C-alpha cells in the first residue's frame, strides 16, 4: 500500500536545486510534493511525482544521484487534531516516524495528504487501515 518517493542528492550551493527543477520542468514532470533536508554541505530532496519511472530516468540522465524509497501517502482529515490522530495510531503500534511532509491534494478535498517515512511500512499501514485511515496507492496519488 506504499508509494514511491524519489530522493535526490544535491550539493549545498546556489543554483543546485534549480538545476534539478529545470530538468524536471523540461521533462514536464508534475511535482506533487517535495521536502528538503540539508546539512552544511549537502542536501537531500525528496519528491513525490506523477511519473516515478520517467522522473528517475530524467534525473539519471541529468547526472543526479537518486534513490527510490517506499513511503506511505496518508489521507489526513482536514480538521483540528487530524494529524494528531494519525500519529497517535502510529505511536500506539510502536512505529517510528523518520520524517514526514505534506503534499498537494485536491483543492476541493476535505482532506490533507501527508507522506510518512516510517521504519515499518506494513505494520504502520495495517494499524492505520484498522482505524479507517485512508492510505493512497500510486494510482490514486497520481490522480489527486
Amino acid at each position, binding site marked *: 500500500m506504499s508509494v514511491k518517493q524519489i*530522493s535526490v542528492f*544535491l*550539493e549545498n550551493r546556489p543554483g543546485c536545486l534549480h538545476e534539478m527543477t529545470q530538468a524536471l520542468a523540461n521533462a514536464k514532470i508534475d511535482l506533487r510534493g517535495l521536502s528538503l533536508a540539508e*546539512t552544511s554541505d*549537502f542536501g537531500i530532496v525528496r519528491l513525490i511525482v506523477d511519473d516515478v519511472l520517467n522522473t528517475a530516468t530524467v534525473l539519471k540522465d541529468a547526472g543526479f*544521484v537518486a534513490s527510490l524509497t517506499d513511503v506511505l501517502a496518508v489521507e489526513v482529515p482536514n480538521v483540528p487534531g487530524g494529524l494528531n490522530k494519525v500519529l497517535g495510531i502510529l505511536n500506539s503500534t510502536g512505529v517510528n516516524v523518520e520524517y514526514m511532509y505534506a503534499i498537494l491534494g485536491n483543492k476541493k478535498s476535505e482532506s490533507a495528504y501527508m507522506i510518512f517515512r516510517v521504519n515499518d511500512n506494513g505494520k504502520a499501514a495495517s494499524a492505520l487501515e484498522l482505524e479507517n485511515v485512508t492510505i493512497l496507492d500510486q494510482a490514486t496519488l497520481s490522480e489527486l
Partner: protein
Amino acid sequence: MPDSKVSDSSPQFQKEGFILKKYFQQEIECMPHEKIRELQNEKFLKQVRHVWEDVPYYRAKMQEKGLTPNDIKSLDDLHKLPFLTKDDLRKAYPYGLMGRPLKDCVRIQSTSGTTGQRVVAFYTLHDIHIWEEMCARAIVAAGGSDEDVVQVSYGYGLFTGGPGLNGGSHLLGSLTIPTSSGNTDRQIMFIKDLSATILCCTPSYAAFIGERMKEMGMKPDDIPLKAGIFGAEAWSEAMRRDIEATMGIKAYDIYGLTELCGPGVSFECEDQHGMHINEDYFVAEIIDPKTGEVLPEGSLGELVFTTLDKEAFPLLRYRTRDITSLSHEACPCGRTHVRMSRLKGRTDDMLIIRGVNVFPSQIETVLINKGYPANYQIIVDRVNNTDTLDVRVEMTPEMFTDNLGEVNKKQAELVDGLKSMLGLKAKVTLVAPKTIVRSEGKAVRVIDNRKI
C-alpha cells in the same frame, strides 16, 4: 650496438617458442647481480667520460667539487659526483645538458609540466632504440607477445607515454592501436571491436574507462583485455585492485620520466611486487632528500638515477623527487634487476599539513577501501594560520539513501578512516557525481590554496 642486441635475441626467442616467452631479453634481464654490476661499472665509466667531454654544464659542476674523471674509478665513487636537479634542467634549458650535437638527434620529447617546470629531452636514434627496448621488456613482463594487440591510450606527441609504449609494442611485434588519450567511448569500441588484449594508459584514465564501461552496462567478460600497463602517475594498491576487478585484467605498474627517456625505466612483472629497474641502462640510488646522503638498501627516500647508455641526454645522479625504496631480493619471475617499490609519491606531491606529511595516494587508499570512486580532489587551505584539508568525494548511487543520518554516518566513517591513515582530521565534502574533472592524462588531485 642496440641493433645487434635485438637481432641476436629475436631468433633465440623463436627457437624457444615465442608464445611461452617470459622475457624480451632473457640474458640481460636475468643476468646474475655481480655480472650486471660489472656491466654497469664499465658503462658508467664511459658515461662519466662522455659527460665530462661533451656536457660543459656538468663538467663545471664536477670542477666545482674538484673532481675529474680520474677521481671516478668505479661505481663505488658514484656518491662523489654532484647531483643534477630539475633546477639544473631549468637553468640549462634548452640545450645546456646535451651530450651530442643537434644534428645527431632525431627526436624531442617534453614533460606535461605538472610540476610547473617543462623539461625538454633530446634523443639520438640509439637513445630512442634503448627506450623502446625497455618498453618492449615491460610489455613482455605484462604477458605480452607478438600475438597481442596493444592499445596505447597514453597521449601521443610531446608526452613520452604514447611514443614509448608505441615503440616498445612495435619492437616486440605486437599489433599496435595508437588511439592516444581521449574519446573514451571510442577507446572502448576499439578494445571490443579490434580485440585489444593489453591497454596502456595512466591509471586514472584506466579507472575512467572502467567507469564508463560500467555505465554502458559492460562486464569484464565483454572485453578481450587481459592486462594493462599503467603509469605516469602515482597510484595505490587499492586502485589497482579496483581497476583489475572492473576490467577483469591484471594491472601492471610502469615507471619512467622524460628526463631519462620516458616510461619503461622500470616495470612490474607477474609478481606485481615492485618494478624492475633496467639496470643495464641505469644505476639507481636512494638518498635522504634533505641531506643528499645515500641511504642503505630498503630505506625509503628520494630516487636518484644515473644513465649508463645515453648519447644525447646523459644525466649523472639525477634527482627524480620520487619517493620509493629499492630491493635486490630475488624475484620469483627470474629477473635479477633491482626492484623499486610502488611510488609513495613525489617530494613535490607530498603535502605538509599541520606538520604532517600527507601523500595523495594515502587518501586514495582510504577512499577505495571504503567503496568510493578514485575520483577525488584534495583542497588544502590555510584559515586563521591553521592548515585545512578538504577531501572532495563524489556521491555514488551505492552510498546514497533518502536518510540524512545514514549519509552523514558514511561521511563520518570516511573522516575516521582518513584520520587513522593520516593522523590528522580532514573534512570530507560529498559532491555531485561527475563534478570532479576526469583526467585523460595526469589527474590534478591537489589544489593547494595556501599562500605561504
